[in-house]
């Protein structure tokens, strides 16, 4: 397919570092959009602040780069104002689960028809490598010079517990699968989430001696385990593995839809 038709070409080359996974994730999104066949005019991409959140600037949709952590509330308002619009949120692990954690779980609870993509690079990339709720315990960061001391969130588990309809996880290495999972997420009516494991060589890889971007991406190949296979493995075997695939896919009442029904009801009275 022709990615370029979806891009704002004059903004390229993009700001992401050499070997950053965010560009790979963007390609997967574009394949998904292309396969579904959505009109560019009917797509809004909303983000917060972070490297990942720079994504909307590069795509030729209706794009909204909001404040740190708040993409989901903006997207919620937009979706309610224009239910026919396909609203995609792109967010970083810090943006979505640190400062924006509450909006994430509430959107999941409401099961509002948004698709949220969280680019999880285990770090605050944009601001130079501070610890994030997704930094594995013991790993280093500029604000974790003794190693991260906190547990991290299982983003999938958390959003499922909060009420999401569709949740998946994938690495950028498995780009093909990633595109398909995003396609499923976009097609889902209800709150859908894809956690995209995206290497950040600059702010996370270096300080943790994980190598350069290409090395980190190749490493994902080793670490990834399909959800189906993971079910047959023990917790020990799964340690440090990345489980990829669809984690949940269920039918629940969608918020905007429910609201539209209430409106017709209220207007009938």
């Amino acid at each position, binding site marked *: 397919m022709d990615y370029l038709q979806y891009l704002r070409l004059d903004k390229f080359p993009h700001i992401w570092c050499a070997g950053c996974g965010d560009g790979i994730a963007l390609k997967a999104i574009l394949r998904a959009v292309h396969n579904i066949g959505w009109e560019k005019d009917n797509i809004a991409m909303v983000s917060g602040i972070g490297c990942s959140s720079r994504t909307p600037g590069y795509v030729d949709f209706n794009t*909204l780069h*909001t404040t740190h952590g*708040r993409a989901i*509330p903006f997207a919620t308002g937009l979706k309610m*104002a224009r239910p026919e619009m396909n609203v995609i949120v792109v967010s970083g692990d810090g943006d979505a689960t640190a400062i924006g954690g509450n909006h994430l779980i*509430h959107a999941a609870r409401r099961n509002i028809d948004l698709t949220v993509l969280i680019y999880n690079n285990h770090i605050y990339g944009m601001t130079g490598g501070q610890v994030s709720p997704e930094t594995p315990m013991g790993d280093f960061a500029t604000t974790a010079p003794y190693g991260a001391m906190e547990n991290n969130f299982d983003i999938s588990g958390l959003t499922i517990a909060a009420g999401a309809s569709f949740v998946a996880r994938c690495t950028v290495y498995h780009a093909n699968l990633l595109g398909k999972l995003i396609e499923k997420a976009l097609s889902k009516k209800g709150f859908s989430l894809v956690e995209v494991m995206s290497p950040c060589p600059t702010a996370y890889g270096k300080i943790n001696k994980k190598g350069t971007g290409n090395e980190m991406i190749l490493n994902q190949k080793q670490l990834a385990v399909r959800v189906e296979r993971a079910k047959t493995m023990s917790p020990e075997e799964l340690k440090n593995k990345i489980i990829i695939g669809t984690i949940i896919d269920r039918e629940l009442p969608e918020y905007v839809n429910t609201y539209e029904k209430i409106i017709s009801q209220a207007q009938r009275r």
Partner: protein
Amino acid sequence: MKPRTYMMQGNVAVAEGAIDAGCRFFAGYPITPSSEIGETLSKRLPEIGGKFIQMEDEISAMGAVIGASLGGVKSLTATSGPGFSLKQENIGYASITEVPVVIVNVMRGGPSTGLPTLPSQSDVMQARWGTHGDHPIIVLTPATVRETYDMTIQAFNMSEKYRVPVILLMDEIIGHVYEKVTLPNIDELTIINRKKPTCSAQEYLPYIADETLIPPMANFGEGYRYHVTGLVHDETGFPTNKTDQIEVMLNRLNSKLDKYSDEIIQYEDTFTEDAKIGIVTYGSSARSSKNAMRKAREQGIPVGMIRIQTLWPFPTERIYEFGRQVSHIIVPELNLGQIAHEVEHAVKGAAEVVPVNKINGDPIHPEEVLLKIKECI
């Protein structure tokens, strides 16, 4: 059309004004003494095809109204002090992205949780300066229930016309008082909607303005795909770090309202022609002051009053003139002199500024103003 006469609460007047202004989206988070606005709209909006959402907090409510407005739906949020503090970051976002929204703050006693059920006017400076960075903002303040209705409509009109967040700053007394109002017929209202681009989508530059200084605004989903960011951006809407572009952008942003100050800045003169003693006040304190002024006039004291309706931008010129006319300007307000300070700035020493401040949760009593008037003779 049947006459629209009701006993109506100030907060309900906000809701009704918003509906009549064309508002079809409300996002908020309950807080005393503003909650009735959301409560009313949660019922009323669906009846007319609009939507209400109670968000998880005030930050997200502010985000949601900006998102909805970008989608082309006039949007309102309402809160009080603590929530207003939380909304500040996103108010700045609306300001720099020039997305029309109306924010109501029904003021209660502060700071912090303060006096949740008692009246105050102590968020006046915050309404101007609460968010970081220089930014344009309009702040209106009503003194009656009827004016609350009218000003809510005005707030939407200004917001749409100038692409600026407009704050309706009420005090608890105005928010909660029930008063008899006769509303105008819908067809008598002036309703302003955002100017849409007339050019093609290809030609559209979202932040380029003609001599009006206000760029036409395309709604998301209407074929004009563009980028909106809270970073300083150039005329294309994309971030820039170039000093000359930054300058063009921030200068237009911060001066666009100057061009319209005549239509934005509103105040009401009462008995000012022959006044030797002046009162400058606003909101519920203006009601106390009016009462005091009537009594003073009955006693032959030549008092005149300017009731400020547009707090920000501040009516500096009018107050300057007034300062040169009168010996004293009494400034009754339910705070420690926030507007008095601004009046002092405006009069440049020409008249003596006499603050009447009250922050104990009681409204200013007409007698207190009367006393000050007498002290000024």
